[in-house]
């Protein structure tokens, strides 16, 4: 009946699926990642194995019952281990992210539920090239995909174009540079908007169509999957670049960090 032209993903479409329940998760580690981003490692009371790209909802409850809720992409690869990583950027005028950065500490219990989301999902066991485009903390779900690809020993040609202000702001930078050296078909292009690039294959400007086409051309074939995650303005430019490069609209999935 529906003329939905996009395919649904059998991994997440389950008729009569059960409700995803809230659970307590304990912060077991906190790691400084960049000047504005920390990683929080949660031990789950009820472990789950997510699909790279999915998110959890986190809820904080004040003594008077007031509740604040936010969605955070999972940064870790799916794993049978009962631990997940969330990388949370401190938003200066935020309500929840300053709590995590300034108040939360190891041993705290936090309510969360997941895995959630059935669209922005790593296409496991695909042989068709994948193009990942992210900005700032928008690299989080893409990092989960890259980590999954590596953990599963996949060799699907994959390129990441990541935009950051400065080198210090690059989330998971060391890990991404190292992943590129493994020779498994992963390529990493960095663009810095407030510093010159240090590698010939990187860029030193805001994202544009030419940059998207350049990075995509490093793949052996046109990407069959394009994932874009960042601010709305960034996503618009990246998507226009992907469309201008001739990639079909249906292949492009977006996640916009709006609020």
């Amino acid at each position: 009946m529906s003329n939905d032209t996009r395919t649904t993903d059998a991994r997440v479409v389950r008729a009569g699926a059960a409700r995803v329940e809230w659970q307590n998760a304990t912060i077991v580690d906190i790691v400084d990642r960049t000047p504005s981003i920390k990683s929080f490692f949660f031990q789950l009371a009820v472990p789950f194995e997510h699909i790279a790209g999915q998110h959890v909802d986190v809820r904080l409850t004040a003594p008077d019952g007031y509740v604040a809720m936010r969605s955070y992409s999972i940064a870790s690869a799916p794993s049978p281990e009962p631990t997940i990583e969330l990388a949370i950027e401190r938003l200066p005028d935020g309500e929840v992210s300053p709590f995590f950065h300034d108040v939360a500490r190891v041993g705290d219990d936090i309510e969360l539920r997941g895995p959630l989301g059935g669209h922005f999902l790593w296409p496991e066991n695909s042989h068709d090239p994948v193009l990942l485009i992210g900005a700032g903390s928008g690299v989080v779900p893409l990092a989960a995909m890259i980590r999954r690809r590596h953990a599963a020993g996949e060799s699907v040609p994959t390129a990441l174009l990541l935009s950051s202000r400065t080198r210090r702001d690059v989330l998971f930078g060391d890990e991404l540079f190292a992943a590129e050296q493994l020779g498994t078909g992963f390529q990493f292009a960095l663009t810095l908007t407030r510093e010159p690039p240090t590698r010939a294959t990187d860029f030193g400007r805001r994202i544009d169509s030419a940059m998207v086409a350049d990075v995509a051309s490093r793949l052996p074939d046109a990407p069959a999957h394009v994932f874009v995650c960042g601010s709305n303005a960034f996503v618009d430019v990246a998507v226009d670049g992907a469309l201008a490069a001739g990639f079909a609209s249906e292949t492009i999935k977006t996640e916009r960090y709006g609020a």
Partner: protein
Amino acid sequence: MVTRGFTGRRASGERSSRLPPGQHVVDDFPVLSAGPAPRVAVEDWTFTLKVGPRPVKVWTWTEFNALPRNTVTRDIHCVTAWSKFDTRWKGVFIDDILADAGLDAPTDFVLAHTVDGYSSNVPMADLTGERAMIALEYEGEPLERDHGGPARLLVPHLYFWKSAKWVNAIQFTERNEAGFWELRGYHMYGDPWREQRYTND
């Protein structure tokens, strides 16, 4: 469970009573979408009313704009937990679309379809009685492409993913058919006041 050290930044007074559980107020208008925002020229846009597979009536942009247009001011609530108060929309109530087509609701369920293949399902009872419109303007301006322009469904009392952007058809269905996000883990109805965010909440 009280979260150690969390006090929060709650809305005060009247604003607080307008905020569904788990939501927070924003002043900007965040944009969310599953894929590229399509470019739709109004000369090429049509709106189709269907019963099952059968088109009942098709309007061009000019014809659609000649239908009665009304302005509403509503609070909107996104499933990603932001809410925006007092948003002003102008468009055509679903009631007036059905009246123009001379159609009484033949089933209890509707799928809204969009130019980019997205869909969302809404019970017919939630679309009538001036509770829903096809919105053509936001805050006195033609609806921007990022926000669904030239036309989007507006069902402000449900989570905002139901208010499908770039809408170009509504279709009566025999059963309550899941739309795009409803097939991907989101709730079939989506009442913000009952926090129906995900499947079977």
